[in-house]
């Protein structure tokens, strides 16, 4: 049998289902129910990787999310998953895993030479060196970067997908150990909606790893019954393989569920799902995480957590070694000794080394009875074997616990089970602002005051006996349900659980050896980042006295395991180095989400690819698409940019479209413009306040252009508003601002002027808008409608209801191009019909669909602005020469700001036109303008600028280029030259007025 460490029987694995996998190319087998870690251990693999900084050989330490060392690269290509904790990956057939951070492999790693220089590379050494010569840092950095990092990113896009589920419940229970099961069962029994989430494939928590009994039978039988009871209640959701990763404000908890049958491949389902849970009450039954004892060379492969070894023996049927020593400061680790002793002949317990004198609890007595040697009042002072434990050196511990006494004794062993006590997993409690209180006796942090509707139960609350966990869990579940409004709870009987008497632990934070810490072997606190007790002591010595400084200086707790095993010992080492009385006063670093790393793609969910953001489509969208337009993104809308005919480039297409509008007729889909229906007796007064010009006297059926300012006096939006009746207007806004303008209007109405009787309703999408534009527009429209269209009957800036192509329509005679123009609005569902009718009827007039680019050229030729292009949040109406639209007679939003000093400056930038010397030069939009001819300066020196180009095009109508610009004192400069330093040299341009075509406005009537 190749699984040399597999016990002959026992465990929760399925020995009938053998699974093949590879590790660093080696073919191995394990069983269904194994994790990669248990399978590797079963196969006798000891070295699973190399350490981050010193490239020391490392083995498996834990059996869960606390694992610092066994971070593997899973699979390859697009399915690669770096840095996976072997202890959390369920084995599957065909799995392929590799070690990270070593080359060519963990057994022989070329970088291990680095370890020789370890004395030169204490915490933070890089801050002190690599500075000379200054210019060399980039080479040093290159080397540092290559050396750092762990696994490798996938090399192809993710073939899997992810999704999310919003969920609500009365009681969310996190953790499905005895406490969580009891809590969930109690809450569910009361009728509350319960969600129970546990990160393991099976519920039971620690019970999966222990030989505990409840009601006289295996505790897992009790767990199975509890699970069935919960799952059996209406509305309960039980989520396995689901980790609560973050606890956020107002009882919002993020869970991540693994859904694919195997970790790296979701199959047809989403690989992982984020549950966004809003709970009325939360019970945190997340258990506790064992912490190691910090002794010299405690990172050698074979040094493991005692509780983890119990998991391997009891849950996975694996004995990680043949001769196991236990090193403990508490009674719980004796369970490991007992379980190993009971595991059969394959494994022997070398000894229990206990830092306490005369340990005395029930478990100790049992161990003695089993004939296990107990070396009390002793310390492990050294580990033999650099590539794997071969034995330990043990010496007596002095009274104070800070020195060793007596003679050294060697004990042969290949595994060391280390236990320094258990830390309640208060991570989630702390995420959302919960306090932690220090229990100095036990050296642990307990959940304190919380800002959330939450309680902790079981080991997470510092209750370590099983009976207490079950009882406390049930109480917490019942209380949570009651808080959520489910007061009635059925009577339950407490299960019978025998409790062993356990003696207190003895806190020894760093286990002394024969030399000061750091001089003989390394005492690792954070194996993932290679942080030692000496590093933390150095930090303290150098003045990084705050735990937060020490963390950042040494990188303690900053690796993917986030210091689940090392943080608390690290804090204590710092406390001792600083000489504080109560190490708890040093405090913890801040617990932050996620509890364990969360896939970025899962957090993105389905908001990627085609669903990344909605594509907003007008009713005519698909016509444009068939016509082969190119699109411009405007907010979420797609708008036709231009319509290239076969072989046309943008320039040719746009020129053709521009000519068509000025010479014949063009048609534009303007459906995206914002439209707001404004009704009520105070509607005109309201417009007076939000626009710069006056609205009271506007006649019914008449249209007026308006500028909207922010209260800071800067232009915010513009558009045409039409009076439909005395108390009824319809406002148009720019496409991009449609939603924000409506919200702005509502804000003023609701918060500032509730006395105004006005209602606003968005009708943007109620109407499709086809705008026909050009000298033949009237002829075209006449074919489709019966109303009189001559300039007198239907004058510029007016509106009429009519039927166009059989469709009821609102026609607005307004123009953004200076040409005769009709904006025909029809019910959106008729938009496409209208459009095709106009296209067909317009054929004989040479109708040409045009896009936003042509629209921009044509409006610029007329000097019409685009908000966001000619304006940038610092532009006033006066800057644009639009004083004419600013009423002096009334107050309006923004008016007071004009009077401020800066708006009175005489060198403000003003809107002007520019004509380059060379008519073929189209200036880049955004080009900067200088007063005199200046080249671009060399880096480090500057050239004064007087403005910039806002819009710039080639105009087929002018037969040349032209531009609009904002230029200091621009209007005074008309007729003068300015300069534009560009990539290819300096261009010269003459300043002109901003209107290039038809300044008299004679074309407006066709």
């Amino acid at each position: 049998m190749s699984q040399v460490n597999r016990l002959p029987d026992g465990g929760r694995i399925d020995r009938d289902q053998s699974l093949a996998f590879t590790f660093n190319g080696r073919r191995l087998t394990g069983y269904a129910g194994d994790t990669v870690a248990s399978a590797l251990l079963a196969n006798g693999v000891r070295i699973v990787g190399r350490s981050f900084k010193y490239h020391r050989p490392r083995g498996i330490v834990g059996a869960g999310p606390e694992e610092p060392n066994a971070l593997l690269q899973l699979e390859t290509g697009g399915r690669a998953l770096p840095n996976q904790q072997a202890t959390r990956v369920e084995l599957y057939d065909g799995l392929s895993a590799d070690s990270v951070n070593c080359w060519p492999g963990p057994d022989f790693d070329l970088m291990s030479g680095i370890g020789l220089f370890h004395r030169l590379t204490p915490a933070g050494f890089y801050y002190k060196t690599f500075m000379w010569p200054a210019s060399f840092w980039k080479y040093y950095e290159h080397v540092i970067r290559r050396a750092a990092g762990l696994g490798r990113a996938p090399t192809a896009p993710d073939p899997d997908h992810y999704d999310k589920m919003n969920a609500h419940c009365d009681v969310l229970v996190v953790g499905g150990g005895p406490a969580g099961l009891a809590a969930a069962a109690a809450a569910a029994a009361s009728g509350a909606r319960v969600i129970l989430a546990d990160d393991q494939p099976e519920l039971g928590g620690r019970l999966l790893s222990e030989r505990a009994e409840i009601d006289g039978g295996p505790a897992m039988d009790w767990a199975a019954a509890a699970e069935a009871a919960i799952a059996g209640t209406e509305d309960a959701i039980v989520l396995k393989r689901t980790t609560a990763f973050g606890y956020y404000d107002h009882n919002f908890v993020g869970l991540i569920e693994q859904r694919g049958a195997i970790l790296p491949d979701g199959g047809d389902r989403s690989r992982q799902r984020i549950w966004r849970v809003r709970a009325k009450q939360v019970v945190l039954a997340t258990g506790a995480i064992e912490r190691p004892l910090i002794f010299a060379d405690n990172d050698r492969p074979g040094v493991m957590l005692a509780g983890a070894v119990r998991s391997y023996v009891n849950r996975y049927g694996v004995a990680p070694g043949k001769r196991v020593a236990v090193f403990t400061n508490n009674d719980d680790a004796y369970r490991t000794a007992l379980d190993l002793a009971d595991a059969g002949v394959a494994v022997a317990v070398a000894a229990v080394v206990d830092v306490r004198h005369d340990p005395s609890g029930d478990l100790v007595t049992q161990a003695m009875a089993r004939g296990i040697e107990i070396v009390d009042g002793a310390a492990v002072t050294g580990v033999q074997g650099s590539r794997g434990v071969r034995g330990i050196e043990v010496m007596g511990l002095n009274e104070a616990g800070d020195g060793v006494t007596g003679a050294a004794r060697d004990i042969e062993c290949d595994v060391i089970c280390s236990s320094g006590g258990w830390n309640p997993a208060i991570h989630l409690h702390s995420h959302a602002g919960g306090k932690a209180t220090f229990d100095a006796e036990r050296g642990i942090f307990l959940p304190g005051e919380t800002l959330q509707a939450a309680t902790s139960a079981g080991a997470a609350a510092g209750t370590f006996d099983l009976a207490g966990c079950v009882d406390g869990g049930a109480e917490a579940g019942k209380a949570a349900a009651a808080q959520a409004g489910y007061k009635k709870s059925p009577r339950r009987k407490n299960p019978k659980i025998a409790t062993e008497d356990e003696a207190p632990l003895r806190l020894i934070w760093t286990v002394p050896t024969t030399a000061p810490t750091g001089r003989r072997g390394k005492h690792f606190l954070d194996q993932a980042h290679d942080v030692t007790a000496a590093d933390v002591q150095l930090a303290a010595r150098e003045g990084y006295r705050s735990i937060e400084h020490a963390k950042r200086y040494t990188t303690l707790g900053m690796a993917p395991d986030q210091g689940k095993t090392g943080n608390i010992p690290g804090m204590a080492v710092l406390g001792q180095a600083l000489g504080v009385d109560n190490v708890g006063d040093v405090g913890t670093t801040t617990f932050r989400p996620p509890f364990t790393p969360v896939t970025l793609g899962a957090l993105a969910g389905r908001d990627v690819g085609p669903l990344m953001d909605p594509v907003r489509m007008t009713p005519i969208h698909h016509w444009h698409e068939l016509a082969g337009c190119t699109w411009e993104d405007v907010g979420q809308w797609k708008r036709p940019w231009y319509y290239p005919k076969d072989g046309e480039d943008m320039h040719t297409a746009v020129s053709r479209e521009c000519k068509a509008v000025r010479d014949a007729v063009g048609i534009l889909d303007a459906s995206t413009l914002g439209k707001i229906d404004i009704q009520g007796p105070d509607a005109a007064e309201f417009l007076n306040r939000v626009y710069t010009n006056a609205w009271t006297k506007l006649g019914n059926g008449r249209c007026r252009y308006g500028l909207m300012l922010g209260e800071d006096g800067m232009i915010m939006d513009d558009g045409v508003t039409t009076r439909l009746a005395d108390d009824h207007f319809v406002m148009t806004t720019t496409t991009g601002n449609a939603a924000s303008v409506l919200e702005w209007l509502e804000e003023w109405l609701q918060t500032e002027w509730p006395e105004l009787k006005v209602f606003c309703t968005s009708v943007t999408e109620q109407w499709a808008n086809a705008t026909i534009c050009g000298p033949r527009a009237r002829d075209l429209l006449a074919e489709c409608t019966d109303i009189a269209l001559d300039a007198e009957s239907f004058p510029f800036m007016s509106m009429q209801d009519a039927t166009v192509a059989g469709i009821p329509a609102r026609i607005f005679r307004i123009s953004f191009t200076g040409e005769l123009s009709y904006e025909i609005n029809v019910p959106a569902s008729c938009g496409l019909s209208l459009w095709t009718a106009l296209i067909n009827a317009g054929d004989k007039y040479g109708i040409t669909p045009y896009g936003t680019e042509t629209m921009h050229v044509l409006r610029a030729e007329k000097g019409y602005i685009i908000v966001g292009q000619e304006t940038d949040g610092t532009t006033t109406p006066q800057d644009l020469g639009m004083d004419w639209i600013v009423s002096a007679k009334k107050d309006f939003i923004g008016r007071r700001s004009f009077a401020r000093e800066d708006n009175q400056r005489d060198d403000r930038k003003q809107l002007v036109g520019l004509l380059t010397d060379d008519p073929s030069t189209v200036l880049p939009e955004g080009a900067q303008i200088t007063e005199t001819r200046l080249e671009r300066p060399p880096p480090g020196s500057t050239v004064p600028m007087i403005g910039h180009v806002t819009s710039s095009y080639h105009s087929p109508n002018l037969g040349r280029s032209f531009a609009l610009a904002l230029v200091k004192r621009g209007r005074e400069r008309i007729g003068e030259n300015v300069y534009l330093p560009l990539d290819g040299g300096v261009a010269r341009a003459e300043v002109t007025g901003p209107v290039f075509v038809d300044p008299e406005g004679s074309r407006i009537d066709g």
Partner: protein
Amino acid sequence: MASAPRMSKYSIFSLVRNALAYHEGWEQVWRSPEPKPEYDVIIVGGGGHGLATAFYLAKEHGITNVAVIEKGWLGGGNTGRNTTIIRSNYLWDESAGIYEKSLQLYEGLSQELNFNIMLSQRGVLNLAHNLHDMRELERRVNANRLNGIDSEILSTAEIQDFIPIINTSPKSRYPILGGSLQRRGGTARHDAIAWGFARGADQRGVDIIQQCEVTGIRQSRGKVTGVETTKGLIKAKTVGVVVAGHSSVLAGMAGFRLTVNSYPLQALVSEPIKPVLDTVVMSNAVHVYVSQSDKGELVIGAGIDGCHGYTQRGSLHVIEGQLGALCELFPIFSRLRMMRQWGGIVDTCPDASPIIGKTPVGGLYFNCGWGTGGFKATPGSGWAFAHTLANGEPHPLNAPFTLDRFTTGKLIDEHGAAAVAH
């Protein structure tokens, strides 16, 4: 006054020497003095800006009877939680001036401080996803170049060459149309900035007093006389307040209000991986930015949270949104995992520019409003603020950034350049 306590220099030689002595000979990077009853200048806030101010006060102006008062641990505010992006490609002349000064100081800072701040000038690329973005970039690049700041436009193809793993597909929801690149931009090790300035200031005699919160600002006849702290009253006739997210709180103590609003700004890091991204990439339109640290994590951020707050944590939906954008831009990041997320408290100004200068109270100066983007300004801001404190008048570099500009209307609107945080 307090002479330099220790002057040992960091170098490869000192490293070797100390290694032989088991690193027991290293001196404290800074002392932990008890506050004196009075100082010439008090700086409230031991973030990068406050410490830089103290350093330049001592170094450039010879004013060393200075206390920096920090309520927590130095560098623990936004300085300790930012995404470390450094660049100077701002639009307006005023901003270009101070940010470029800052970048220049950064370029010599490791040597000046004798502390490796790991300035990594790997380039900062701003992406454009629509025509409006493109125009804005073009405008800024042109302005930068006339302001002597290196800046260039990259086409989509050039971007693909530059960053092979980026998704430039024209089929993506918001295709990349181009970008602007400042090659001198990059990142630096944020903690090192705080520690290096602290060490430099301390060596020159500045008292850095941590775990000491300012609880009141004493005034007499319109002039500041000192600050009340959790360690008692400390007097000074010149007080500079540099407390970022807490600026309004301090202004409240002094009896006036500011134009800043404090918001959570979040960031997160992925687990560490081998180098895949050698540039800082930012996108306003899809709202995300990312770089890879020397240690291997992807450092990822986006815009501020939606509502005011002093909680130093934010809302998950903001993170969810930014990661959608990230996975669109970098499809190979989808399977990587978030290792840690956190928040800072940023003090945003209506025009996305800072306030550095006088206040209604004589002798009391504020330096705040850096919002989402003041890390890059740390040395420049400290340099200019030190000048202001030393002379009682602003330096021309910070003269435009007055509180008064909100009265006159002379705002310096950097929303375009300030981007999604940075």
